[in-house]
């Protein structure tokens, strides 16, 4: 699989909002599914934004999105999530492997996006339902998947199983140079 990167050229500018206030964490090959990489942006206030990593298959050249569905089962839809008050009462509590949504591409391949971290679901991005292109054009900003608030006492430990930006880049470059093992 060929990956297109545009990392080098973005850095002729000052640090972005994400550079300034967020730490990037990664989960590669989520649930053993090859290349299904997630990126978690953790704000210094512990809030986490779940996004697709730039290496996720959906974001590869020429892919188009057919549908995005936050209704992950008959009984549960992330669209029904409601939080109230400062303490965000009522938000669904998610574990690492809780599915957030399913995305189907025009070639009918379906991908599941996962929470990757434990925490309370604050909001999902309804904009991408109306404009799936947002997800393709701005996967790390306007095309985010969900916002999650880890428990205060877990804010330091929720990212334990995740990769740092450096480790992620390492994984990607190895993936690109070594031929993929097929199962």
């Amino acid at each position, binding site marked *: 699989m060929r990956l297109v990167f545009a990392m080098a050229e973005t850095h002729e*500018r*000052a640090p*972005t*909002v994400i550079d300034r*206030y967020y730490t990037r964490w990664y989960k590669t090959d989520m649930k053993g599914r090859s290349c299904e990489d997630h990126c978690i942006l953790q*704000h210094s*206030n*512990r*809030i986490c*934004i779940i996004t697709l990593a730039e290496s996720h298959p959906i974001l590869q050249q020429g892919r188009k999105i057919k549908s995005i569905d936050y209704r992950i089962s008959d009984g549960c839809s992330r669209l029904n999530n409601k*939080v*109230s*008050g*400062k303490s*965000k009462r009522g938000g669904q509590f998610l574990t690492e492997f809780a599915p957030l949504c399913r995305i189907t591409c025009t070639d009918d391949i379906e991908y599941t996006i996962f929470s990757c971290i434990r925490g309370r679901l*604050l*909001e999902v*991005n309804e*904009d991408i339902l109306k404009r799936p292109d*947002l997800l393709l054009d*701005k996967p790390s*900003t*306007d095309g*985010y998947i969900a*916002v999650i*608030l880890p428990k205060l006492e877990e804010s330091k430990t929720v990212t334990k199983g995740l990769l740092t930006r450096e480790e992620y880049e390492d994984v990607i470059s190895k993936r690109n140079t070594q031929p993929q093992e097929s199962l």
Partner: protein
Amino acid sequence: MMLSLKDKDRAVIRKLLAAGCCGRCVLRFCCVGKYSSYQQSCEDIEKELLAFLGTDDAEQSHDASGETETGDPPCKKMKLESPGENASAGGAPEPKVQSGVCVACVGVLQHFCDQSYAKQVSDVVRKGEYRFDSLMFAVSLPAQLSVREHSLWLHIKKEVREKSMCLDKEDVVQVKDAFKWAVQGLVGKELGASVLANSAFEVSVGFAHPETDGDCHFLATECPDCFKPTKNKASVFTRMAVVKALEKISDTKFLRHYPCPPVSPSSKCTPLDTTCLHAPVFIAGRYNKFSRELPQTPWVIDGERRMEGSVEELIANPLLTAFKADGFNFCSSGREDVDVRTLGNGRPFAIELLNPHRAKFNRSEMRQLQETINTSSDKIRVRDLQIVTREATSRMKEGEEEKTKSYSALIWTQKPITPADLDCFAKIKELKIDQKTPLRVLHRRPLAVRQRHIHSMSASYLDTHHFTLQLRTQAGTYIKEFVHGDFGRTKPNLGALMETEVDILELDVESVDVDWPPAVPE
């Protein structure tokens, strides 16, 4: 007569003295409302009471002789009905003042109404080094005094009612009031201050009497709902709770559980520490913040300080020193982020100084204080510094939502721009934007979508990727999020309007349009 007692008080006085009441407490139950009566010494009051009882028959006969105007010499009748004869005839014992601690006030009105106690209190006040020209005097008494008072009231109710049907328990002068009437004048004189019912400076004294603390306990079993434990109270037997329970309990029930009259205590009460408290002083002004590395309030994360200094400390510290205050509360019309400057006329603020030991500063002293603040740091500047009332500070928050704030922002654009690209901003008026609670504050604020108005904008071109954007907005608009969009959560945002990615590099508050506090001419 000094004590302004009436004939029908005699029965009440006899009963109270026999029960072991002190002179001042006797006056209280006789509903004597004359302050000066309580200012005499205990001995004088008691002497007068005995004399009053002693003159019983003499006076009656005198009155009688006056009314009838018979020619009989008064001395004759006096001889016939001497006090001694009268007492033995009625079977009542010779009236005398009990020597022990008073059953009603447990010594408060016996041992702490004199010059030496007033001096003791005044010495403590002087040590506090407060500046004041008036004071108010507060006293806290053990809750069980209300129980003792109730018992004594039941003891003499019949006699009081005979005196006048309209008299009730509420007409009895309270220990608290009698104590104040007796002693607060002495304290005021000692300190050279007038004693008022309302003063910013409060001197508090109090008494404890552990020996009789148990007096209240039976009330908890009789009226359990009056004594619910609260977190911040050491004991459930607060004065309020005891008074409430006494209002509820029937006389029969009360008398079943508590002696009437009360048992004489063996020790007198002990005075608690005298404390002083000055009402807060409120200082208002406007501040400029010239640093992009200065938070408005101390920035502490996980108990660790993240940045040196803060706007509120730079302003408050010289004020704390000058007013010799114990602490402060800072509040302002909105606030700016660490990296945002506040220029122009500045941002209105108010500081509440707690327990100031000095509260009066004239205009020129305030100007001097402002100068001290301004020379102490070049990161901030203060103007219009003045003392205001607590009520006036609410004007700062009044209609805050409707107020206008002006900003200046340095913008970066991803796509190259020309000056002509910026012409569009002048045409945009009253732009409505929908802002979801910014992610950077979402951890501590509720999630909501708020509509805000950007009244007007104008732009000045700098180079192909930079320009300055001037904005006039409704207060409460998050400018940074309006510029970068906050993951598309502010709609529309500047990036969407310009159809390119944009970022905010610097932000200045140019003006906060709140017309309070009033300007102070330089």
